[in-house]
């Protein structure tokens, strides 16, 4: 273990961390443009900005994943060369990633030992256990050492990620959107405990966040980036949410109220009854859910990720077979075959479109033709008509402003937002659309892309399309849905018209209460 590596870190106070005039270029793209930031010892510092603002690039430069094009990192007031995460670790800097980095099949204790940078050839488990127990006893929060990580809840896993860094004696914690996978309750608990450590002067925390509420509640200082440039800095106590938002977005932007027309939701389009489905590992994920979605309404399914929403969506969109249950679309049994999809006008906007709805190495045009390639005019008999496929792609690229060099470019070369737009173009451009199944359609996208996608979904609803919208973003559901259902542990545990929805009840149901 590296205990006494940082000159400035005695046992009490974490080192001072300063970034001076940092610039990072990737080819012609300037991801960071002369950004400076100061993380004072024993403070909780938030790094705010839209997607693509350069937050992740900045922390990755601090961590040594990237080498800055110019600029300095000062630890303990001295310029340091950080060539790799291992170097960063030497200076007491540790990072907790957005996604879990533990080995699910191994126990908490094994994961902690594994996380050390210098494991010895032999592990003396008895000694390790004693040491780990001693460490755990004085840690700000506890996780059972002998439990396999796979059995931990998301909040517990996130705690383990943080514990790992404390175990490695990191005095400066960098958190990359640490609460994106947690319930609000879990998030408050984890951040609250970290806040205590900071207040007691044992840690400094630099947290990337999108959530103003967390920034206002838990942090001392905030640095805002916009389009790779420094956009503002201040003490949280001097700032209002409106200030933060205007620093982040450039000008204060009200979230656009979506224009919903009044529709008569009377024709059932999607009806599913008593659906059961298993996870990949064979354990039950969906335990008997039933729902009817009518034409011209958006039914939102809320819930913390991992409560069976993904599996339910996969069943409905044909990616997974249900163990029992029936799906009926437009009054006829539905088995998600291609002809049923076509005749009933069923379309999907799955989460992670590159993984779920695109063939990465095929071209934008081919990906846009995925729904239509076997019908005239795109095919004649069994043969493709490449001209027609290209023509449609050009039209959709223009109509949905997909930024791609050419229709022939492999779709994996596009940015996330543009992949999403390409899929949206394919799924929403049909006149025949009747049912849309969307899952976290805006995950990880920035403001303008989100607004565009929301607008398109509501426009589809206004045309009489039945929409099933699964989302982990409650705000998204509250602003789009006509009816909201909460899914917890594989079952629907709450249902309400949006006007009567009670937020605190929804929150409790989501958390399994």
């Amino acid at each position, binding site marked *: 273990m590296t205990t006494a590596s940082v000159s400035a870190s005695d046992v009490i106070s974490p080192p001072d961390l300063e970034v001076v005039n940092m610039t990072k270029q*990737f*080819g*012609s*793209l300037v*991801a960071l443009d002369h950004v400076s930031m100061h993380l004072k010892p024993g403070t909780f510092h938030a790094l705010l900005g*839209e*997607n*693509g*603002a*350069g*937050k*992740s*690039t900045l922390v*990755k430069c601090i961590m040594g994943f*990237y080498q800055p094009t110019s600029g300095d990192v000062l630890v303990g007031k001295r310029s340091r060369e950080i060539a790799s995460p291992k170097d960063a670790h030497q200076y007491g800097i540790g990072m907790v990633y957005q996604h879990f980095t533990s080995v699910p099949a191994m126990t908490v204790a094994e994961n902690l030992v594994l996380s050390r940078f210098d494991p010895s050839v032999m592990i003396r488990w008895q000694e390790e256990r004693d040491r780990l127990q001693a460490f755990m006893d004085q840690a700000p929060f506890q996780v059972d050492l002998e439990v396999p990580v796979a059995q931990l809840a998301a909040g517990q896993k996130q705690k383990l990620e943080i514990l790992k860094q404390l175990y490695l004696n990191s005095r400066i914690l960098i958190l990359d959107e640490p609460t994106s996978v947690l319930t609000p309750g879990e998030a408050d608990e984890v951040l609250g405990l970290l806040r205590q450590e900071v207040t007691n002067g044992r840690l400094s925390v630099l947290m990337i966040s999108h959530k103003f509420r967390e920034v206002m509640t838990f942090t001392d200082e905030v640095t805002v980036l916009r*389009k790779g440039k420094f956009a503002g800095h201040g003490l949280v106590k001097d700032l209002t949410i409106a200030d933060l938002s205007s620093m982040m977005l450039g000008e204060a932007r009200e979230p656009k109220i979506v224009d919903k027309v009044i529709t008569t939701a009377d024709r059932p389009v999607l009806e599913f009854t008593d659906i059961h489905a298993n996870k990949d590992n064979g354990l039950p994920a969906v335990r008997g859910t039933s729902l009817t979605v009518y034409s011209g309404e958006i039914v939102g399914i809320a819930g913390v990720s991992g409560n069976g929403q993904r599996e339910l969506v996969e069943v409905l*969109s*044909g*990616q997974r077979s249900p163990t029992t249950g029936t799906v009926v679309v437009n009054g006829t049994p539905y088995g*998600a*075959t*291609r*002809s049923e*999809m*076509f005749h009933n006008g069923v379309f*999907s906007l*799955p989460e*992670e479109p590159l*993984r*779920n*709805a*695109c*063939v*990465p190495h*095929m071209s934008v045009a*081919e990906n846009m*033709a*995925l729904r239509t*390639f*076997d019908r005239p005019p795109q095919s004649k008999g*069994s*043969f*493709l008509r490449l001209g027609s496929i290209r023509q449609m792609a050009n039209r959709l690229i223009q109509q949905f402003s997909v*930024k*791609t*060099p*050419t229709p*022939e470019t*492999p779709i994996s*070369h596009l*940015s*996330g*937002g*543009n992949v999403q737009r390409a899929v949206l173009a394919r799924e929403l451009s049909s006149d025949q659309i009747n049912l849309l199944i969307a899952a976290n359609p805006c*995950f*990880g*996208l*920035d403001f*303008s*892309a989100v607004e565009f996608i929301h607008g398109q979904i509501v426009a589809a609803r206004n045309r009489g399309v039945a929409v099933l919208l699964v989302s982990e973003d409650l705000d998204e559901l509250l602003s789009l849905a006509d009816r909201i259902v909460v899914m917890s542990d594989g079952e629907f545990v709450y249902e309400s018209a949006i006007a009567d929805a009670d937020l605190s009840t929804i929150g409790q149901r989501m958390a399994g209460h």
Partner: protein
Amino acid sequence: MRDTPWLRKSEPLVISAGAIAVALALFGLFCAIAGANPFGVYGSIYTAAFGSSSRIQGTLILASPLMLSALCTALPARLGLVIIGNEGALVVGGVGAVAMGLSLGTSLPPLLVQTLMAIAGMVAGGVWIGIVGALRHYRAVNETISSLLMNYIAIALLNHLVGGPMRDPSSLNKPSTFPLAAANMLGNLPGTRIHYGLIFGLVACGVAYVLIQRTTFGFAARTAGGNVRAARIAGLPVGRLAVTICFLAGACAGLAGMVEVAAVHGVANESLNAGYGYGGILVAFVARHNPLAAALIAVLVGGIVGSGGILQRTHSLPDATVLIFQGIMFLTILYSDSLYGKLAFFREQPVDIPPDPTPAAVETTV
């Protein structure tokens, strides 16, 4: 962002050619260690393969079964399956063709018998690899392993049949089936000693290319091969595609078996199991599973296969030396796969556009 299609298209050419060049260099090193002059060996291989019109014809004769058998790996590869059961499908195809040819005898016009023999060979090979596809889809059995093991079953089946039920008692040293009637043998292209199998091979490669690139079936197969989750969301029948493409793949190798018995051996015996199946795997990989490229590479590999004798005669290297060359070439080709996207020259743009996990760097500049 700039887009340069020619650059993207030239990447596989440059990398494959580079891999073959490295294979040549390593093979030269091997020859030098074995006491032969590498450049002399290169020269001999070239002469043996392409040195004269007669030798080119010999090379093309070897290339025809390689083209067909390569498709057995190349077609399923577009669906993401790694099938190496070419040898087995070729063997059962040959047996099927002989069985058909012998049972029909001279009762029908030769052209009809040949057609039925070809169909029998294709169905036998097709079912053989079709089983692999079905096992894969319905029982999740790894298709590479099962197709490999199916090779042994096919060879054992061949040995059993030619040693027992189908044995011609007059074949003493080398148990064989009864010979096909001379009239039913595939003839040669006019003015050459190249049999019609070459035409089969070229046509099959052309048809396979059109099938994959230009038909809705090929589009569906490429989609399922590129991302099965996307294929499912589009409602494509992934299982049926897998079984169908495996059947077609096996049918190509089965046709190769038919060509071997009906144009070369006249009987089915252990000569069927002469390594064209394994050579086909090499051809498919070098061609990056592109059927048109496979036709060309098959000629190249056919030339190398045919040069074993000359290496023995003029350089006193064992004739299995060419297998070493094939092996080295296979390794360098497999290795070269890891270079795609890594050579800075072919980068269209800095791919590591960094930050957020699902970024939209372009979007923010709107």
